[in-house]
């Protein structure tokens, strides 16, 4: 079965993240965001792609929200309350707590300030949040019989999580936004090494390589210190959550260390409320914050006090955090208008801007005047300092995560197209992992793992418990010279533990495959032990000659099976010494042929490899199938070596191998 990824948003763009993944019949919607850059229908994902009829509850198994940013959650109330989705929704506890704040704030801005038509109301938000199930980190949720999900820490913002979803044998990870390097207040992403078919990862900074954050912090502190030492005022427009806390912690520490007395202000409103949430969800913050919690709450800033509008023009230096981050309006714009004309002041600009914002104008060039309105101009004489503390991981981080998880496929979302293309190339060439970056509304099909379940007999399981390892010395001439040229892939001596390939897989008509022990099989068939003494490479005909014996049993030592058999005439060998592997359906076809050919009382006799993987939590055993041998080479006990089922063509019998 394939895994289908239907990208409804954030395909080759940043904004309105929304991916619907179908795994083994289960449909999961990851994120349900809105695009902040559009005001028309494009701001929401095209939900009609999910179901033409508009019956969403039945067509989706669940919705998973990674974090509370609007481009990941903004369309949720609309989808549940207006479009009528009524199924389960999962998000982490902090996200559940903070999401309504964000949504409500956004709704207010949209409706109250800009006077737009209301997309969803406050009640919608409340109702929507009631449908949400909150999850904890690393807590495995059984959504239904087949679907398991689990959240992993992602850094980025408070409560951000990556989600692991597994249906049957197929498993994927959807990262949402994440950060691979820790902040002051949030940790780095943390995940287990999982067996995955697909990783869907964000790629905001697909080609950026960020340097150490320390240098930036130092610069920031230096600029601020210099400004306040000169009696200037510092305006730091920020988003309410995340960056504000990060910078505030940085400044607070610095103030403490340098013994500065200049006041730091937080503009009232969302930020202060947000601080409260940080204090509550202390467990979701970085190690450092958690450690200091024993003595004090790191979010109880010592040097920070709240700000009053009347203080804007109060004399003396100060540092002010004000929302919103892009100086697009509100309080930060108001302060900016007052402070920008004075030379001693400083405005700290965030790294990421939407194209139309003032902050973007300020960054692209250093203007002397900014046109705010038809008639309103602001003279900008203050210093501008740009500061990009991004909570997104950079290209190295993405590569590191992908390398760590080593999935079979990678899907890139949440990034810009040309950069994604570059990253795709890198992933494919460096890691050898297939990579895709579908556009919006594109449906991507990825083949998934499918295991055939085999029953194991008790005797086989018992034998599995006993160690049974072997050493194999490969006869290679590649010795020291290769060490110099770095071509060595394998050491000469290798270890195998073959207890898992000691079994025999039996496939009987209309029955489940079963793994049994040798002895079991032999006693069931009433045959004697045979030993293969001849194993050589020679051309083999596909036809089986007269099949007098029903003995079909091979006990080739794995040493020969896996190793390279010395082949005198490789040019026209068909198979016997090469191993071929097949999985899934292919195998079934193969077995069928083999069965017909062999006849007798048996359908098939195969060698296979069997792995107990993934530890106890997986519950079931997964088997990988390897067909090593098409035909069977048999030797009677003690007798002369006879090649059964092989017809040697051409130059007569090959030399006897042993």
């Amino acid at each position: 079965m394939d895994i289908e990824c239907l990208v409804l948003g954030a395909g080759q763009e940043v904004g309105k993240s929304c991916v619907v993944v179908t795994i083994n019949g289960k449909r999961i919607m990851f994120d349900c965001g809105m695009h902040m850059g559009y005001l028309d229908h494009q701001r929401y994902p095209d939900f009609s792609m999910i179901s033409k009829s508009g019956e969403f509850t039945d067509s989706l198994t669940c919705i998973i929200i990674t974090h509370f940013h609007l481009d990941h959650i903004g369309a949720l109330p609309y989808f549940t309350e207006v479009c009528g989705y009524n199924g389960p929704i999962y998000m982490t506890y902090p996200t559940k707590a903070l999401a309504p704040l964000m949504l409500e704030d956004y709704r207010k801005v949209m409706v109250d300030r800009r006077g737009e038509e209301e997309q969803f109301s406050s009640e919608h938000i409340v109702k929507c949040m009631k449908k949400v199930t909150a999850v904890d980190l690393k807590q495995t949720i059984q959504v239904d019989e087949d679907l398991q999900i689990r959240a992993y820490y992602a850094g980025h913002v408070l409560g951000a999580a990556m989600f692991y979803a597994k249906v049957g044998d197929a498993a994927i990870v959807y990262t949402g936004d994440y950060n691979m390097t820790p902040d002051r207040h949030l940790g780095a992403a943390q995940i287990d090494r999982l067996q995955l078919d697909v990783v869907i990862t964000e790629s905001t900074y697909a080609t950026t390589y960020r340097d150490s954050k320390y240098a930036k912090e130092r610069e920031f502190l230096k600029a601020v210190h210099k400004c306040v030492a000169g009696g200037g005022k510092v305006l730091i427009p920020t988003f309410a959550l995340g960056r504000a806390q990060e910078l505030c912690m940085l400044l607070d520490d610095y103030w403490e260390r340098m013994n500065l007395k200049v006041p730091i202000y937080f503009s009232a409103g969302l930020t202060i409320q947000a601080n409260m949430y940080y204090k509550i969800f202390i467990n979701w913050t970085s190690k450092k914050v958690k450690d200091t919690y024993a003595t004090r709450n790191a979010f109880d800033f010592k040097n920070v006090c709240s700000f009053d509008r009347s203080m804007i023009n109060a004399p003396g230096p100060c540092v002010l955090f004000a929302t919103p981050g892009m100086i697009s309006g509100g309080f930060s714009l108001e302060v900016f208008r007052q402070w920008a004309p004075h030379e001693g002041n400083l405005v700290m600009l965030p790294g990421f801007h939407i194209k139309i914002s003032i902050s973007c104008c300020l960054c692209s060039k250093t203007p002397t005047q900014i046109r705010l309105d038809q008639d309103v101009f602001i003279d900008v004489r203050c210093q501008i300092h740009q500061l990009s503390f991004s909570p997104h991981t950079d290209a190295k981080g993405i590569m590191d995560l992908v390398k760590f998880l080593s999935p079979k496929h990678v899907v890139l979302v949440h990034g810009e197209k040309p950069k994604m293309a570059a990253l795709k190339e890198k992933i494919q060439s460096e890691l050898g992992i297939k990579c895709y970056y579908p556009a919006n509304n594109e449906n991507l099909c990825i083949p998934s793992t499918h295991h055939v379940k085999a029953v194991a007999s008790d005797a086989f399981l018992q034998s599995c418990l006993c160690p049974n390892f072997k050493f194999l010395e490969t006869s290679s001439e590649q010795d020291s010279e290769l060490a110099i040229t770095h071509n060595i892939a394998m050491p000469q001596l290798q270890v195998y533990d073959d207890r898992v390939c000691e079994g025999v897989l039996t496939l009987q008509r209309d029955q489940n495959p079963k793994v049994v022990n040798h002895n079991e099989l032999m006693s069931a068939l009433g045959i004697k032990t045979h030993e293969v003494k001849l194993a050589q490479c020679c051309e083999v005909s596909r036809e089986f000659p007269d099949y007098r014996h029903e003995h079909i049993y091979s006990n080739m030592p794995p040493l020969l099976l896996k190793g390279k058999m010395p082949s005198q005439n490789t040019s026209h060998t068909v198979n016997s010494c090469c191993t071929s592997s097949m999985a899934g359906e292919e195998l079934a076809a193969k077995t069928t042929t083999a069965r017909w050919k062999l006849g007798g009382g048996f359908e098939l006799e195969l060698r296979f490899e069997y792995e107990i993987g993934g530890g106890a939590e997986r519950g079931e055993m997964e088997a990988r199938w390897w067909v090593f041998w098409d035909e069977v080479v048999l030797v009677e006990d003690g007798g002369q070596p006879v090649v059964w089922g092989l017809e040697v063509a051409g130059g007569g019998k090959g030399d006897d191998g042993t």
Partner: protein
Amino acid sequence: MERRLLAAVICTPEKNPNLSPESTAAVLSLITNPFTSDTTLSSLLDTLILHLQNPNSDHRKILSLLSALSRHHSSLCHRIAAAAAAASFISSSSTSIASIPHALSLLELDHSAEFDSFSDESLFLSLCFLQCVKTRRWMLRNVSRFHVRPSVLLTVLLGFTKDPYPYIREAALDGLVFLSNGIVVEDRSLIECCYFRAVELLFDAENSVRCSAVRAVSEWGQLLVALNPDTTKRDWSDALFVQLSLMVRDTDMEIRVAAFNALGKIQTVSEDILLQTLSKKALAATKEKKFPGQYTANLFKVPAMAAAFTFVHGLEDEFYEVRRSACHALQMLTVLSAEFAGGAVHILMDMLNDDSVVVRLQALETLHHMAMHDHLKVEESHLHMFFGALIDNNALIRSAARKTLQLIKLQKLAVFRSCIDGLIKNLELYPEDEADLFSVLYKIGRTHGKFVISIIKEVSQELEPSFDGKLGFNKVRTAALLVLAISAPVSLERRICSIPPQMFSYAVTMLGRLSCGLVDVMNQSNLLAYLTYCSRFTVASASEFSKGEALEFHSTGNVQLLKRSDEICGDLPRTSMDLNKDTTPLHNYLLNSHVKATSCMEIVLGKVVDLWPMIQLGCWDEVVRTLRSWKQELKKFICNSRQPAGILVFALKYVHVIKLLGKAWACYFSKRNLQFKGMGVLESLLGKTERRLKEMLNRYAGLSREETLHILELMLVTYTLRLSYGGICCFEDYMQKLNFVLSRVEYFRKEGPLELSHFVNELQNISSEIGNSEDGSIHKLYLLQKSLNLFSLKHFVLSGELKYLDAEVVVCDNDFQNPIPFISGLPVGIPFRIKLYNISNETRLWLTMTLGEKSTQFVFLDLDEFEGCNAIREFTFIAPFYRTPKVKYFSLRVSIAMECLSEDQHFKHRNGPKHDLVHLCKGKEVHLSMAVK
């Protein structure tokens, strides 16, 4: 009660194989009650052992009771262990198999050697290969307890790295780590197998396995690197580094810590790769490089790029454990490359801002380590980080910061000034650091003399007493600046006179505080002497000299100077004063007046004593200048006199020896130099000193016992220095030499009453102690080192006339253009004109002819055959040279040497001298060329 309980327990075994909860409780209460009698315990033990032998009973329960019993009553250990061993042997039923680990863990309680099932290899193997996973895990985890052949162990462990159970894999890897430390494997394929197997497990799904794999990769990687020839060693070392640096991006904290610990252990890494660890982008040098190893589960070559940003990631890590470990790894690796160290400094400096104390401390230690290796280049922008560390509220951090700061060489005055301000601020905030801080200020001042002078000039007003005549030394700042001021004269930059002398007198007022801080540099009396000396020195040289003080010196100087007390530290103010007066005036004085050469010499010999404390203080440049001027004086006298007066030459030699010894002394005691570059220098200095001293002993006839003793003492100092820095492993040789000299001293003392110095006495004690101890002679080194502190230079008084043994040798009619003809293979006669001074008939004199580096031919000169008296003897002599080489042209180096019969050392020249030689003249070249027909 006791009986009843026991009865309740004892009666059960047959009826009820499993102990009931009641009887278990009864057993426990009997065990834990300290008043239970021994007999009861013994029968209780019997019962339990019976239970243990019953295959149907619950072995785990019994064994845990047994372990409780052995814990509480150690006397029973032995029996319990025996029972447990028996139980582990008869592990037939499945229930008892599961309890084997319990049984085995009981075994270790028994320490008696007679019963040791841990050495039973077959038991070990059979237990390992049991079906029971738990037993296997226990066996592997406790692999270190078993005495199994390493080869067997290695095979078993290697095999179990393939086990499907992660805990077995982990235990097997840990076992391999344990094994790698204890065995020598020479089979390359085996080591490779272990290494690559461990590398494979770096990609295991289980965290704990990966963590163990990191350690295993590190250990076996080291073995693999060591096994490689030098040509490929570096590549393999790089491969190991890159392989391990993959793991620093693991999401498990412990693995990251382990990875950095492992990285820190790597001995050599290419600079390219080290630089790559600081950069995220691929560097040109590493872009294409690939190493054997594993990149992902499926890719079997590691690109060098895998090391990108390793250390920055580590230092930015969320967990302080990782950051500390990364800092520590940096400490080890920055030694390897200066360029890498330069890059790492930036980020390390940021670590001084870290919120975790251990990380800050480790970062400072790393910086200190870099400074020690001269790999620390501090930029101005970094310094405020350092100053931050100076006022840290943790004393350890402050101390570490100061330790590092004192090693840094600052380039700009402004930076130096802010550095001093930082230190003063430290002192103001934390007065408890005073002692250490003074020492740091003193040391910093010493390395930045020029800056100190300009600073002191700026603040000299501040240091002056206020109007009411009180010095503001209770002010911390003043005290600190004074320390700085007094450090200037010992500066390595030769600016001695520019500090106002009153500073030194001010400093005397806080002598106690100062000496507390400078205790590692000099003791209080030395310090006082130094301060007093400096406070007058400048006055004398700069101003007062012109006021006629020099004249006063002329008249009275001689008398005063000769009455010098032998102790350095005693009577110091006067000593120093006299000394400083005479350094420059002596020159003029000697030139202008026709004082006898001997009196000049006496003055010099007297003065030399005064230089010794200066050497101890480290004012080396001053000493050298003085000595140099004296040497010139003496040389002038020698030139003027018609024949070389032995006594003058002797004095010259003596001054030279003191110069060498002083230099060696200074080198030895400046520990930092010694550690990194000084070894060779010191060694050659001591070698020279030794040769000169030997010459002095042997080339002067008429040395009195006291004089000889003095030279022998200097010889002892030389040997002791040589021994105690432990540079070269010729300990035994030098010990022998030392003992020989000591025995000579002893011989002198037997001849008549002699006063030996503390130093010599102490050495005699040490020597006898070392002689008595059988093996620990090396461990007595510290005694030798300590004894050096007892040494002080004594006044050398020459009692009588000395005869200088000298020789001149001239080859007749020979120079480069006029060579002596020879026929290769045949001997050639070389005519010499030889002049000998003061050489008696008994002297065994040799003519040495050296060809090339090694081959020397000796010709004995029988003085009886030649005319002349002992005082001067002149003759011609034709010496044969036998081994003429097959060349067209060659030259010989010819010299005259005297065999020192007093020297112990035996030479093994056939037909040559048997004792040490002292050359009496400079080597002369003799040129020979093939005879042309």
